[in-house]
């Protein structure tokens, strides 16, 4: 088939909501965009284990410890589903991981913030996983088959994450004065970074059009962010807490919540690597990889010997 024919064929599949599968012909840029997006998503799951892992040994009860352990283990699983999906596009696992360790590939900036108190674990589950869910539900309809299937699997597991987070905060919100303050403080610190998770405003993201045309993405940054604000602004009422935004209020006309301006300077700073924990996170990943090297080699040698 000619290149034109292949492109036409591909375009028709996208138009007709037919998923693209690994062996199908696809434009190079489609492949590259997917590799970048899926691998960054995978890295986000893996690096995302670090801020929460910080609290596994310090969780206040055995029940909370078991829950947090299960949640963090889920995130490792999410990373693996996604690395597998990414590999179907023709990049090796090692290349993908090297790109993370070299700093070439990115992960979601939210994980460059520190987890200072136990309430942060609640805020992460509720806000960070909550934001992730909104994005991931959209991605269950993404056009690349393996990515969409990984998302379906992940979405099934995510709702536990958000619920356990909210429940942590709910308990704190009914506790002592100190616990209430801790709860509010965590919400204050995590609210804005969570909003940043959805990325720059649509007006500034000149390239996202192509991803929409290819149906890799199906909603704009602003749309997703608005969905998130509307959801959280309602849920927080149950906690009796406040979102740290004086401009947050229901807009009768738009049928949405209005909210204040995000600090974009902070956003770009963290993207560029100057967030509070960027270095610490990457160092931890590299260390884990390097210290696991002898295990990888020994297992390979053992398998070789038994052939």
């Amino acid at each position, binding site marked *: 088939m000619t290149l034109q024919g292949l492109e036409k064929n591909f375009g028709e599949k996208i138009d007709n909501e037919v998923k693209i599968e690994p062996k199908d012909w696809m434009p190079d840029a489609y492949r590259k965009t997917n590799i*970048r997006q899926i691998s960054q998503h995978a890295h986000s799951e893996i690096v995302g284990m670090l801020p929460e892992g910080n609290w596994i040994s310090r969780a206040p009860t055995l029940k909370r410890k078991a829950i947090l352990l299960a949640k963090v283990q889920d995130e490792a*699983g999410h990373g693996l589903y996604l690395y597998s999906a990414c590999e179907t596009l023709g990049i090796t696992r090692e290349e993908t991981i090297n790109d993370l360790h*070299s700093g070439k590939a990115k992960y979601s900036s939210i994980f460059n913030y520190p987890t200072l108190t136990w309430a942060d674990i609640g805020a992460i589950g509720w806000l960070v996983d909550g934001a992730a869910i909104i994005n991931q539900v959209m991605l269950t309809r993404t056009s690349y088959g393996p990515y969409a299937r990984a998302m379906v699997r992940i979405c099934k597991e995510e709702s536990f994450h958000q619920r356990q987070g909210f429940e942590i905060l709910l308990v704190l919100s009914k506790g002592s004065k100190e616990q209430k303050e801790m709860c509010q403080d965590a919400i204050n610190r995590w609210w804005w970074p969570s909003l940043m998770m959805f990325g720059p405003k649509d007006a500034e993201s000149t390239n996202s059009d192509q*991803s929409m045309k290819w149906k890799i993405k199906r909603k704009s940054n602003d749309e997703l962010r608005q969905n998130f604000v509307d959801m959280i602004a309602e849920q927080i009422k149950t906690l009796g807490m406040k979102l740290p935004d004086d401009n947050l209020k229901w807009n009768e006309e738009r049928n949405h919540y209005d909210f204040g301006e995000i600090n974009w300077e902070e956003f770009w700073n963290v993207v560029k690597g100057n967030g509070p924990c960027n270095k610490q996170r990457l160092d931890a990943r590299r260390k884990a990889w390097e210290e696991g090297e002898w295990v990888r080699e020994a297992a390979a040698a053992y398998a070789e010997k038994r052939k």
Partner: protein
Amino acid sequence: MNTQFIKKNYYGDIPDEKGGGITNVKISGQDWPLWEVFIRSKQGLDHKHVGSLHASDAKMAIENARDVYTRRMEGVSIWVVESINIHASAPEEVGELFEPAEDKIYRHPTFYNLPEEVNKM
């Protein structure tokens, strides 16, 4: 700051050139082999493909598959097959392979118009 290449800072839209950091990462060129994982979700059902993973041998592949794909009792049995052993039909052959079945609608029960009283057949 020039933001024109940035699409989105969520999963996947930070362009690689925004990176930096170290570059001398050791490359071994050797991942453990890739395995495809199939899970039987309950007795009486077929094993179904669920994804893939890397493992040094079959035993490790099964153990990893349990941790990665059955954390919530999704399975009662696991098959793993090294991916290089899977032979697949090519997407280009789709016409040749499957179109011949398309005009054989008489293979379907709905092709036959029967009187009402026996139409439950």
